[in-house]
């Protein structure tokens, strides 16, 4: 492990870093409270706030570049947030290469998506007046998300991280359930929040454990003293943190919420459920790398989770017809790659972040493209209704296509650099780990190529199936290119997805991140030589494309999904039974248990109380019958009482 660099108080623009999240937060508050008045200009305020914090981020970034690497880790303490006894949680920010990288990603991609949303969320003619308000609400919530996400990455202690962590959870909940009158949206939102809470429990317990063992929750102190702890404790901490990461990043076994999250508006899917929030888990593990450095076992578990997830995502992605669901599972799979990378330890932290950035570009671009398609197709998401859209909406087609190439790792596009690096590192491990990680990653690369090609063909090529169909709302489809306010961001992201990989590796992202993540270790004795891996991956990807072309491209796509299909396809269509398991293991027993408890409480606990009262009343009603009204019976009771008293007294005395 590398000794953490000493921490300097932030200076210059960095000391104003709190503005980064303060501005969007303020804007969110304004938009929430302003009410209808803000309908007219609200969205521009939202865009402006994010742009502002992006600008500030750039300034701080440039300033940080100006100083020597070992001085790039700075902190600014705003005030003491929670203080009791020896506990003193600081509301402070940590500005270092890692957090700055995320700041730029969040605010940069965030700005683009905000701009895109101005067009996407614009009320289409004939909409009810309230949809102005709903756009305002949308931007308020999107700003809230940006603010929370920035707190998450900027916080200099675990509690602040937790604040951002659940803050983005709330924003995600609100935005997934944005179309509130859709029951499915509401349910999806609830599901997302609950599964995230499961992860949060892990994070919380990790925090408690750190407090118990170290008596502090500041990154600097924790990382400095983590070495004092025993292996068992550290392993426990790493696993609990991993649980948190799984919840947030839709990793196995908590991946089921992410596809449902696509109920939200597409820009949300692009920003939150592709580019930023869902990568928070990767950030968490990368941020706590000093802890993971100390636990090889912990790292193996992380890597395996990543492997399992990237396979699950890739497999299910092949079966769906819903364009957003396919992209969602692709996200699950790609985050699997990142988790795998950070699971490789010093050999992979930087690579994980690298892939996270490139993925941020091209996946956001893909989602925006999908959004543009839906915008054109009356919000239809079923690819079987598409086809031949390439000619109708060229810009979308081109940008989307570039994103697609980047994702499948077409040579010298961003995906090629980041993903192949991860796979190389994976093969770089020794023994079985190398084979398992590398093999799975390579296989998934092929699958990725398959399902993405399938998506491209079904959407942009082939016959225009939509000609013969009518939209759910009855009218015919009139595919048209989206307005510039939407295509602009798509173009920028496309450029990003083309060059980001090359640029970032050229300028040396790894060295830049080194102060936060330690030097990137080149694995020397892997199971496969480095030279071989790219070709292998390329071969698998090409194979995937080819198969896709043979299966989908050469024969017409049926408008109705074919039934019955082979077992694996069925399994994949049903998310490999993840939801079924959740339902039968957790949901139904839970409902049953609740009913049982309600019964127990009313009949049992409360029944006891009321029963006691009833018993007293009944006893009273019976006993008062003894008061017959006959003098002689009264006399009898008196005599009986006297006899008892006499007998008892004599008994006490003489016995």
């Amino acid at each position, binding site marked *: 492990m590398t000794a953490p660099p000493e921490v300097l108080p932030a200076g210059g623009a960095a000391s104003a870093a709190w503005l980064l999240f303060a501005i969007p937060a303020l804007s969110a508050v304004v938009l929430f409270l302003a009410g209808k008045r803000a309908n007219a200009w609200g969205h521009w305020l939202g865009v402006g706030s994010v742009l502002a914090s992006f600008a500030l981020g750039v300034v701080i970034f440039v300033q940080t570049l100006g100083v020597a690497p070992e001085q790039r880790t700075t902190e600014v303490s705003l005030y003491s947030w929670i203080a009791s006894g020896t506990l003193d949680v600081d509301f402070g920010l940590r500005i270092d290469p890692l957090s700055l990288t995320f700041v730029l990603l969040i605010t940069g991609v965030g700005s683009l998506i905000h701009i895109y949303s101005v067009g996407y969320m614009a009320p289409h003619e004939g909409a009810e007046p309230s949809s102005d308000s709903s756009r305002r609400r949308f931007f308020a919530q999107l700003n809230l998300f940006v603010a929370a996400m920035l707190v998450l990455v900027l916080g200099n202690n675990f509690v602040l991280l937790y604040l951002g962590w659940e803050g983005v959870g709330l924003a995600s909940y609100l935005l997934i359930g944005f179309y509130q009158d859709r029951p499915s949206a509401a349910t999806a939102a609830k599901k997302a929040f609950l599964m995230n809470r499961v992860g949060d429990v892990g994070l919380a317990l990790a925090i408690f454990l750190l407090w118990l063992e170290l008596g502090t929750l500041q990154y600097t102190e924790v990382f400095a003293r983590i070495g004092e702890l025993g292996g068992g404790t550290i392993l426990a901490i790493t696993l609990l943190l991993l649980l948190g990461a799984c919840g947030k990043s839709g990793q196995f076994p908590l991946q089921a919420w992410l596809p449902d999250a696509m109920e939200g508006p597409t820009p949300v899917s692009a920003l939150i459920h592709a580019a930023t929030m869902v990568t928070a888990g990767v950030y968490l593990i990368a941020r706590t790398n000093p802890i993971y450095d100390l636990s090889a076992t912990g790292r193996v578990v992380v890597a395996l989770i990543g492997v399992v997830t990237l396979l699950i995502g890739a497999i299910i992605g092949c079966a769906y017809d819903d364009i957003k669901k396919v992209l969602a599972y692709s996200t699950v799979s790609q985050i699997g790659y990142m988790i795998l990378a950070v699971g490789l330890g010093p050999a992979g932290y930087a690579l994980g972040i690298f892939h996270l950035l490139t993925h941020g570009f091209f996946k956001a671009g893909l989602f925006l493209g999908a959004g543009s398609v839906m915008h054109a197709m009356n919000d239809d998401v079923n690819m079987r209704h598409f086809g031949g859209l390439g000619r109708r909406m060229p810009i979308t087609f081109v940008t989307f296509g570039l994103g697609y190439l980047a994702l499948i790792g077409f040579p010298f596009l961003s995906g090629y650099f980041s993903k192949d690096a991860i796979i190389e590192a994976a093969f770089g491990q020794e023994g079985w780990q190398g084979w398992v990680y590398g093999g799975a990653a390579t296989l998934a690369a092929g699958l990725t190529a398959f399902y993405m090609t399938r998506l491209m063909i079904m959407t942009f090529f082939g016959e225009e199936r939509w000609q013969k169909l009518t939209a759910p709302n009855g009218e015919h489809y009139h595919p048209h290119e989206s307005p510039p306010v939407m295509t602009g961001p798509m173009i920028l992201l496309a450029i990003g997805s083309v060059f980001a990989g090359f640029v970032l590796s050229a300028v040396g992202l790894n060295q830049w991140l080194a102060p936060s993540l330690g030097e990137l270790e080149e694995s020397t004795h892997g199971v496969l030589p480095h030279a071989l891996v790219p070709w292998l991956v390329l071969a698998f990807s090409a194979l995937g494309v080819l198969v896709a072309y043979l299966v989908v491209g050469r024969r017409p796509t049926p408008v109705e999904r074919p039934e019955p299909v082979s077992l694996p396809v069925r399994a994949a269509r049903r998310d490999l039974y993840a939801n079924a398991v959740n339902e039968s293991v957790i949901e139904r027993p839970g409902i049953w248990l609740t009913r049982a408890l309600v019964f127990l409480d009313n009949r049992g606990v409360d029944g006891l109380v009321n029963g006691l009262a009833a018993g007293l009343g009944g006893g009273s009603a019976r006993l008062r019958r003894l*008061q*017959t*009204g*006959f*003098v*002689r019976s009264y006399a*009898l009771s008196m*005599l009986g009482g006297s006899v008892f008293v006499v007998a008892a007294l004599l008994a006490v005395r003489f016995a």
Partner: protein
Amino acid sequence: MSPTNYLLLSGLLFTVGAIGVLVRRNAIVVFMCIELMLNAVNLSLVTFARINGQLDGQVMAFFVMVVAAAEVVVGLAIIMSIFRTRRSSSVDDANLLKY
């Protein structure tokens, strides 16, 4: 003859009186049974006086008689008044007040 016998007799009388109170219906008779119990007490008082070789007990017996007489006056008055209204002196008829 040992004084104990007198005590036993008085105890017996007392019990008889008590039982009488329990079993007889006529208010007058019930009342007479109570008088019997009082007189049982008198007997034991006198006996104890004899045993202790004092006069106190006998004096007390007189007190008891006086009090008993007073009770008779009051009791008969009450029984008469209820007899007037009810035309019955059975204690069992008077059971409007119960439960």
